[in-house]
């Protein structure tokens, strides 16, 4: 096979103007949505002692997939008033938040040990495998300027949906949109560091600071290839040396760092001050 593939640029950009301007490219996988659903009003820990895993959804993909959780409203402990917003939930950052996990069959949730909460969330389960390494080539920013372009592109409607619909939810693909594309998946056993904790690193050699997420096995000594091993959201962050770092307290956990090519940091900056 030769160097063949396909790429689609943003409206107004030359298709050869650089990887940053691509909305689809055969070089980077787009996380496909396997299923989504809403769970509202589930009292997940009414007696403050239930910490077992509960099945939230069954996917049966045969591998642990990347998932996202959006939470409605607050955790309900501060007496906040006003509209109940929706925000993406980072599940390992705070005590009191529910913990979510996937294995090769299901998406799960459980309470943290001594906190209660009401589960009000939307979940998305994708078809991206988080316990298998993947590495795409480095991408380029390109130098092409937006040239105006015309009304062209492509769209693929969902089965039964009108191809002329103005609702973007009616399309599986639409060239007037862009979304996450995966640059790398790095997995491995977290290694001890001088701080006494355990770490997995990914060093991005990229022209921009990418978005990233981290997962780790729920228990020490879990086999990362065992279909029943649960993977929970991990604490991944950008450290002071520019590495993406997955941090864990217990030894013996395996981790996974997901690095996204897209979406990029937008070029235009909104300046705010307080």
């Amino acid at each position, binding site marked *: 096979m030769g160097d063949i593939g396909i790429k689609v640029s943003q409206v107004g950009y030359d298709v050869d103007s650089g990887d940053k301007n691509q909305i689809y490219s*055969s070089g980077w996988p787009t996380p496909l949505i396997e299923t989504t659903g809403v769970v509202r009003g589930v009292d997940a820990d009414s007696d403050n002692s239930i910490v077992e895993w509960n099945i939230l959804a069954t996917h049966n993909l045969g591998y642990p997939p990347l998932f996202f959780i959006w939470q409605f409203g607050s955790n309900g402990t501060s007496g906040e008033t006003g509209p109940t*917003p929706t925000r993406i939930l980072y599940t390992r950052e*705070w005590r009191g938040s529910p913990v979510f996990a996937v294995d090769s069959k299901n998406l799960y949730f459980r309470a943290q040990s001594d906190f209660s909460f009401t589960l009000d969330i939307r979940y998305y389960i994708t078809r991206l495998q988080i316990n298998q390494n993947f590495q795409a080539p480095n991408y380029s920013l390109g130098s092409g300027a937006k040239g105006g372009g015309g009304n062209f592109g492509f769209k693929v409607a969902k089965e039964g949906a009108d191809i002329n619909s103005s609702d973007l939810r009616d399309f599986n693909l639409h060239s007037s949109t862009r*979304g996450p594309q995966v640059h790398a998946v790095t997995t491995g056993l977290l290694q001890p560091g001088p701080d006494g904790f355990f770490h997995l690193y990914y060093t991005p050699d990229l022209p921009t600071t990418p978005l990233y997420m981290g997962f780790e096995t729920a228990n020490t000594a879990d086999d990362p290839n065992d279909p029943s091993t649960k993977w929970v959201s991990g604490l991944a962050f950008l450290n002071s040396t520019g590495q993406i*770092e997955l941090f864990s307290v217990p030894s013996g956990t395996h981790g996974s760092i997901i690095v996204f090519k897209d979406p990029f940091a937008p070029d235009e900056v909104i300046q705010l001050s307080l």
Partner: protein
Amino acid sequence: MNFGVKISLPGIDVNKASPEECAVYSKYDTFKINETATPPHFGQAVITIRNNPPRDVVTNLYKIPHGYSHRPSVLSHIDTGVINSGNRGSIIAGRVSSNPSASNELDYLECCVDDTYLYINIRQHTSDWTGAGAVSLSIPGAVYPNIATVRFYIFANDGSQ
């Protein structure tokens, strides 16, 4: 019906490729950010915190209409700008608190949506918290201004019902 678009990853025969071996596979939905929306549905807000934020109130820093008739989902990446224990509080999250060991309800920088708007809000609790691992927005003695960054991406995909 058997129609659509399928683009395999490099080195994979498209006729044999599974969905996981494809860069694009139109049978499945994807996350979609409208590139033509005004105001833009992807943005990078740089927030200069010149002094301690107002205490015990939610202060809105940024608010734009998203234009959807439904509540969308928003992916946000928050960098508090504070280096603590050699690390930055820089993660995909809807809300980053100053105290990762406690509830995140009292002290935070957040990005969220409701049925009409996208918001970037800040809330500072009565007292600062300075424990190990904190990613505080206003550590006592910190040099101001502190620069925080919020990247946001509004997906057309449903965020709630």
